[in-house]
Structure formats: C-alpha cells, structure tokens
C-alpha cells in the first residue's frame, strides 16, 4: 500500500470523526469566551445525539426519507440550546460553581436521554436509522489527483463544520457582538461599565454553545453511530474541550486541533489495518490528544491561556 493510498483511506475517516469535535469545540468557545466554563459540553452532546436519532426515526416513519437526518440536526440545535439553560440559569443567575454544574449536567443528560429512550422504545437503545447522512464523492473535486482525498467518501456535514469555524472566527473577532462576548469573559466589570449587559451576553454565549453542542452530538449520531445508546457519546465532549484549549480558544485553532484529534482517532480505529501504524500500540494513539492538551497547557507546546474571567460568576458592584 503506498502512502497516498493510506491517506485515501485515513483522511475521510479522520474528517468524519473531526466534524463533531470541531462543531462542539466552537460551541465551547462561545461559552468560555463569555466567561462560563462549559464542562457540560459532553452532556449537551449526549442530548443532541439522542435528539438527532429520535427525530430521524420519527421523521422517517412520517415518510420524510433522506431529508429526516438533516431536519434532525436543526431540531438538535434547538434542543441543545434549551438544555444548556440548565447550565446558564444556575451559573449566571444563581452563581453556582460552573464546574460542579457541568458534572451534574453530564449526569443529568445521560440519565434523561436513556430514560426517554426507554419510555419511547421500551429498551435501552434505539433502532438504527434508515437514512443516514451519506458518504459521497464530491462531483468534479473528487477527480483532482491527490487533493481528492478530501473529497471522496465524505459527508457534507464536514464541510459545514469547517465553514462554521470561519464564520465563528469572523463573529468573535470581527463583529460588535464578538467584541462584547469577549469583553464579558475577560473583564465583566469593565464591560458592564461600558453598558454591556453581562447577564444577557453570557446567556447568549452559553445557549450558542448549547446549540453547537447539540448539533455536534446529532452529527456524530447520524453520521458515525446511526443509533443512540448509553455509549454513543463517551468522551467526545471532553475531547472537544481539549480541542478548544489546544486551539487556544480561537475558532481556527479549534478547527486545526479538531482535525488533528480526528486524525488521531481515525488512526486508533483503523490503524491496525495499515502498514507502519499497526506497529504503534493503539493506546498511544488513543491517549495522544489528551496528553498533548496537558502539554499545551503546561506551556510545552505553546502556552494556552484561558479567558481571564472564565468560571467566575459576575456580581455587580463587587471588585
């Protein structure tokens, strides 16, 4: 097998695994840039995945066919945004510890999701969906030599994720909204003094992250697993947080980190069939993203600094 042939196999798988990571990491950026720690991303993805599958199953039954997974993505965004209120309300209004809340919400999400699945289907996991978002060869582009590796066997959701990264970058760094969002995450009192509504901005940050997290979970479910169970989302949310940190809370950085982590995941899954990589112990590929994130935080691979006021509830008038 030539190196190029290996890439033709690995890159599409890497893109598929990277897609939900990128989307969820972008969500994390919205929340943390506004000053709210979002450990709950994992749980939000669980809710998104469950919503995605349940909606797809229901819509398929109603006869919407191939359109149903796409609609389910939109539904998952809405449900994700609403679910993130469990984080937003106590964290922003009641000054609860955001990390503790995140842990609780992750627990809540998996409990609630499986509970609903059991109530609806009378078993612990859903059926497989009939219409998934298919892997396609992009017309014309998939004929280009070498570069075609990015356009064969690919789902359009991957391109959406990459496009979103640029959109989010633009929103955060080039629009008034982004400036306000960043300012309440860095120095909420200064922002408040300038007439920015800190509470409102933080609510928007968290709910946007809920929408992205829900979308990410649904994308993972309708492209990769195609059913929902208690082990559909195990760690993707935390991996997305790692990608967010590794990308230094910058959407384009998160895009790069997400692609890289997706690549590592792809290698750990299909690596045993490939030359050279099959000699690398699988465990090294599995732990690589997490280990690298720790190194990044320690400043070994370029220092990663969080938004200044992330995790601190804003109390008016307190210095």
């Amino acid at each position, binding site marked *: 097998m030539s190196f190029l042939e290996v890439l033709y196999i690995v890159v599409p798988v890497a893109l598929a695994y990277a897609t939900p990571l990128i989307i969820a990491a972008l969500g994390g950026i919205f929340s943390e840039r506004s000053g709210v720690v979002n450990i709950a991303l994992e749980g939000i993805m669980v809710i998104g995945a469950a919503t995605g599958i349940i909606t797809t199953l229901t819509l398929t039954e109603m006869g919407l066919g191939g359109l149903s997974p796409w609609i389910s993505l939109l539904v998952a965004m809405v449900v994700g945004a609403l679910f993130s209120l469990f984080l937003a309300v106590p964290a922003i209004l009641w000054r609860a510890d955001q990390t503790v809340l995140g842990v609780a919400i992750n627990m809540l999400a998996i409990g609630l999701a499986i509970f609903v699945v059991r109530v609806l289907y009378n078993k612990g996991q859903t059926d497989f969906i009939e219409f998934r978002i298919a892997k396609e060869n992009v017309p014309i582009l998939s004929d280009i030599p070498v570069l075609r590796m990015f356009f064969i066997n690919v789902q359009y959701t991957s391109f959406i994720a990459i496009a979103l990264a640029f959109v989010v970058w633009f929103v955060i760094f080039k629009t008034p909204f982004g400036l306000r969002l960043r300012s309440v995450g860095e120095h909420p009192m200064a922002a408040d003094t300038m007439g920015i509504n800190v509470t409102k901005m933080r609510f928007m940050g968290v709910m946007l992250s809920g929408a992205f997290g829900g979308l990410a979970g649904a994308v993972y479910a309708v492209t990769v697993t195609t059913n929902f169970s208690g*082990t559909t989302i195990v760690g993707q949310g935390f*991996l997305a947080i790692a990608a967010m940190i590794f990308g230094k809370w910058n959407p384009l950085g998160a895009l790069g980190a997400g692609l890289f982590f997706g690549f590592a995941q792809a290698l750990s899954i299909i690596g045993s069939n490939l030359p050279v990589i099959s000699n690398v112990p699988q465990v090294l590929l599995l732990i690589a993203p997490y280990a690298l994130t*720790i190194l990044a935080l*320690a400043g070994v691979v370029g220092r990663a600094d969080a938004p200044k006021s992330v995790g601190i509830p804003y109390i008016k008038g307190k210095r």
Partner: protein
Amino acid sequence: MNKLGFNRLLIPLLSILMGLLVGAIVMLIGGYDPIQGFSSLFEGMVGSPYAIGETLRAAAPLIFSGLAVAFAFRTGLFNIGVEGQVLIGWVAAVYVGINFDLPMFIHLPLALLAAMFAAALWAFVPGFLKAKFHVHEVITSIMMNYIALYTTNAILRSVIGVTNERTESINESASLASPWLQEMTQFSRLHWGVLIAVLAAIVYYYILQRTTLGYELRAVGFNKHASQYAGMSVNRNIILSFVISGMFAGLAGAMEGLGTFNGMTLSASFTGVGFDGIAVALLGANTAIGVVLAAILFAGLNIGGLAMQLGANIPSELVKVIIAAIVIFVASGYAFNYVIDKFKGNRKKGVEKK
C-alpha cells in the same frame, strides 16, 4: 454564624427534597406512578437485609471517592480526576491481588497500599502541574481521566493478560469478602470495605482538623496569599492535597477490585464512582460525617433504582436524574439563601458574600 450553620444543614436537606420532587415530576411525565416508583425505590434501598447489605456495599467506594473530592476541595482544589484515579487504583489492587501469593495479613494491606500509591502517583500529575505551571487542575485531571481509561484497558490486556473481557479472580488472601457479612445480609455482596471506609472518614477528619498538615491545607484553601505570607509553602500543599486525595480515590478502586468484583473488566466507559464522588462531597459539605451520609444516600439510590426498574418498571436512569438535580440544587445554594432570606424579610448586604 449561627444562621450560616443552620443553612448549611437546611440547603442539603432542601436539595434532597427538591431532587426527589424532580424525580416525581419526571416519573409523571414519563407516564409512571410516582408513589409506586418511590415505594419500590425505597424498598430496594433499605427494605430488606439484602437491600441494606447492597446499599452499604455500594456506599464503600462512594465514601472513598467522596472523601477524595472533599479533601481536595478543602484545599481549594477541584479534583475532577477521581474517576481516573479510581481506575488506576483498581487495576493496581487487582494486579497485586492476582500476582502475589502471601498470607492475608500482608497480602490485603499490600494490595490496598498498591492502589493508594498508584492513584496517588496519578493524582500527583495535576497537582504538580498546578503548583509548577499554574495549569488549572480541572482540565488536566479531566484529560488524565481519559488517559487512565485507555491505559487501564491496555494494562489489563498486555500486563495482566486479559483475553476474555475479565481478569481471573484475585487470590482469596487479598479479598475483602466476608462470608459472615454476606450471610447476615441474605447473601448480598457486602464486604469489609465499608468498615475501612468509615475508618478512612475518621482519618480524614483527623488529618484535616487535628494535624499541622491539615491546618496548612485548609489555610491554603481559605486564602492562598495569606498562607504564603504566613510562611507556608502553597505549592507543596497543593501537591500534597492532590496526592492524599488520590490515595482516597485509589482505595475506592480497591473496594471494587478486592471487594465487590474480585477482579476487573475491560470497559469502554467510566465507572461513575468518581463523578458520584463529586456529588457526595458537595452534598456532604466536605465534612467526614456528611460524606459518609451522602455516600450511603446516593449508593442507596443507585441500588434502589435497579429494584425500581424491576418492581415498577421505571427506568433506573431516573436515579441519575435525581442525583444530578440534587447536585444542581446544592450548587445553587446562593439562590436558596436569597429565597430563604427574602422569605424571612431581612435581606441584608451580608448575604452577598463570596
């Protein structure tokens, strides 16, 4: 001060009540009968000697993981990595349990020590990074959790030689199992672990309240800068706090490996013992007695949930929803204080502490 002490008890109790209320509402929405649900839940928690035995059995690891989280909390640190430290402690205990053949009075302590030491080493990493590089311990310990998950599976496969999902059983000389306790509780899986756990809670109290080390650890938790000024080494205390916290976590893993399961199984996901420990520590307000009581409550809910699924056909996952709701309510203590004070009609500036 008095009022504060009152609220410290009131908020957890209110939170439990409201958590159960949330459970009832979810049951109603799901189309179940809450009265039937709760009666079979409580029946499964404490309704028979067997139920009590299983509840206490499940409480042992939760007491340890709760103590682990609480210990770090008292130094102002959030050890969210207990989950991973539990796994590492578990695998170390099982390794010693399988590979050594010693008289029990050496073997069992050795296996427990191995669990403590391995998990302490695992917890050292986030402590060290926090002290040395000021890296936030929450993120590093989350990352360490996943590294632990994949590493333990790799160790089980390549070092301990698991071919068939599960390790062989540990030697009896390292087992916490007690035929006497089992017989007394209609053959539940109750083992000596819960007694060791209560002892550990006493040790926890002693270290924090009666030793210089504990005084320093708490001082750092209250105010880092003042402690530094008073001549304490903040960095040393941060690392120590994490290491001791890890030891408690490792013992939680040993409870599972040497007591309940007598071995270890390959797993794609976490045990939940560590995350439940966060809930336990929070509800127990980081006190020894609080942790023990909260652990018994959550263990009982987990065990009772299974009975609820069998008895009332209500999915046991409901218990997770209840526990999560309790945690959210405890964490939102400020809102409670606000409401309580407003209710009393004497809302003063004093509430706006923190």
